[in-house]
C-alpha cells in the first residue's frame, strides 16, 4: 500500500532529523538519566535502564492536570515516593559530595523534579480554589483530593465566605446572602483538549451517531468529557 510508504512513525522522524553532532554528543537529558539511574531507576529489567518511571509518570500527571478542566484523582503514591526520593538524594549529597560535575547534575535534576512537583500541586490548588463552592459539596471530587487538599478546600471556602460576608453580603437583604454552587464556577467538561493515545483503544463514540477509532500514537482534539474515562485508565495522555 502506498500509505505505508507515506507514513512516518515518530521514531523514524526523530532518527532522520538527527544531525551527526547530536549523534555523538548526548543531550543533557541523556546524561542526567544516566547519572542518576542508580538512585532514580526502579526498573532494572534492562528495557529502559536510564528512565525513572516515576518521573515520567509525574510528567504525565502534571500535563494531564494542567490541561484537564476538572480535577483529576490525586497521585498519592507517586508524590510520596518522589518526595522521599528527593530527601534521600539530598541526604546522600550531605555525606558524599563526589565529583563536582556529578553533583551539579544531581542538583539540576533535583531542581527539575521539585519544579514538576510544585507545579503539579499548585495547579491542583488553583482548581480547588476556583471550584471551591462546587467541589466542597461533591463527594466524588472530595474523594479525588489528598487529605491536605480536603482540609485546604474546607478552610479556603470558609475564608472566602467570611470575606464576602464582611464586605458585601451582610449588607444585602437576607434572602440574597447565601453562597452556593449557583454563585460560583463549575468546571466545563466539554472544553476541548488535545490527547495522545497510549495504547489501542478501538472504536469510541464521540456523538450519538459518530464513532472514531483510536489507535496508539494517534492525536485527537476532543471534548474533555469524551476522553475523561480513558484518561483515568491511562489509555490516553493530554498534551
Amino acid at each position, binding site marked *: 500500500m502506498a500509505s505505508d510508504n507515506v507514513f512516518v512513525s515518530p521514531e523514524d522522524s526523530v532518527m532522520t532529523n538527527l544531525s551527526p553532532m547530536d549523534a555523538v554528543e548526548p543531550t543533557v537529558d541523556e546524561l542526567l538519566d544516566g547519572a542518576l539511574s542508580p538512585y532514580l531507576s526502579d526498573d532494572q529489567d534492562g528495557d529502559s535502564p536510564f528512565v525513572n518511571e516515576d518521573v515520567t509518570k509525574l510528567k504525565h500527571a502534571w500535563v494531564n492536570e494542567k490541561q484537564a478542566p476538572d480535577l483529576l484523582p490525586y497521585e498519592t503514591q507517586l508524590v510520596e515516593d518522589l518526595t522521599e526520593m528527593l530527601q534521600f538524594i539530598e541526604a546522600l549529597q550531605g555525606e558524599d559530595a563526589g565529583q563536582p560535575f556529578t553533583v551539579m547534575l544531581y542538583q539540576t535534576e533535583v*531542581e527539575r523534579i521539585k519544579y514538576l512537583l510544585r507545579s503539579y500541586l499548585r495547579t491542583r490548588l488553583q482548581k480547588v480554589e476556583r471550584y471551591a463552592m462546587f467541589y466542597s459539596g461533591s463527594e466524588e471530587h472530595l474523594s479525588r483530593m489528598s487529605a491536605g487538599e480536603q482540609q485546604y478546600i474546607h478552610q479556603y471556602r470558609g475564608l472566602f465566605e467570611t470575606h464576602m460576608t464582611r*464586605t458585601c453580603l451582610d449588607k444585602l437583604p437576607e434572602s440574597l446572602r447565601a453562597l452556593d454552587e449557583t454563585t460560583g464556577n463549575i468546571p466545563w467538561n466539554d472544553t476541548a483538549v488535545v490527547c495522545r493515545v497510549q495504547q489501542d483503544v478501538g472504536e469510541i463514540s464521540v456523538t450519538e451517531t459518530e464513532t472514531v477509532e483510536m489507535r496508539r500514537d494517534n492525536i485527537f482534539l476532543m471534548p474533555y468529557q469524551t476522553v475523561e474515562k480513558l484518561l483515568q485508565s491511562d489509555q490516553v495522555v493530554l498534551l
Partner: protein
Amino acid sequence: MLGDTAYKLAQETKRTQAHLTAYNESLVEQLCRETRHIFAQLEALLQKVNPALGRSVDTRAVAAQLAALHATAKRNKRCLLAYHHLRLQFLKSLFWSVGKIPDELKPQLSPQEQDFFSHYAVLVSQYKHPFVDIDLNASELPPRDLFIEVRVLKDCGEIQLEKGSLLLTRNSQHHVKRSDVEHLISQGLLQHIG
C-alpha cells in the same frame, strides 16, 4: 435606571483587571443600599397584589415589575461578588509571586482585604508543611541553570543561602544558586542578568 450602579461597578472591575485601583467602598455601599431598596419595593408590590386588601390592580403588570426587580437584585449580587472576587484573585497571585503586600499597595486595599491576605498566607503554609523541601512558592518558570548571575537593584542586607550567607549591596553582582534568590528576583530586588 435599574442596574446602572451595578454596571458602574462592573466597569470598574474590568479596569481592575489591568490596574488595581483603591477599594471603592462608596460604590459598594451604594449598590448594597440600592439592593435593599429594591427589596423594599418588592415587598410593597407584594402587598398591593394581596387579594385580602381587595384592591383592583393589573396583576400581570405587577408581576412583570416583580420579575424586573428580582432580576436586578440578582444582577447586583453577581456584580458585587465579581468585583470582590477579582480583587481576591489579585491578592492571591500577589501572595504566590511576591509573598507579601508591598507598602505602596497597602492604601489601595480595604482592611478586610489585608486580613484576607494574612489568613490566606496561614492557610497555604499549613498546606505546604508536608512539602517543606519543594518550596511551593518558587518560580513558575522551569529551572534551566542551577547557578545564575544577578545584579542587586536594592540593598537587601545579608541573606541566608543553602550553605552560608551573602551580603547583597546595591549594584553588586553575584553568581548564586537560582533557588536561593528566586524570591528576591520576583520582588524586584535583584535583576537576573545571565
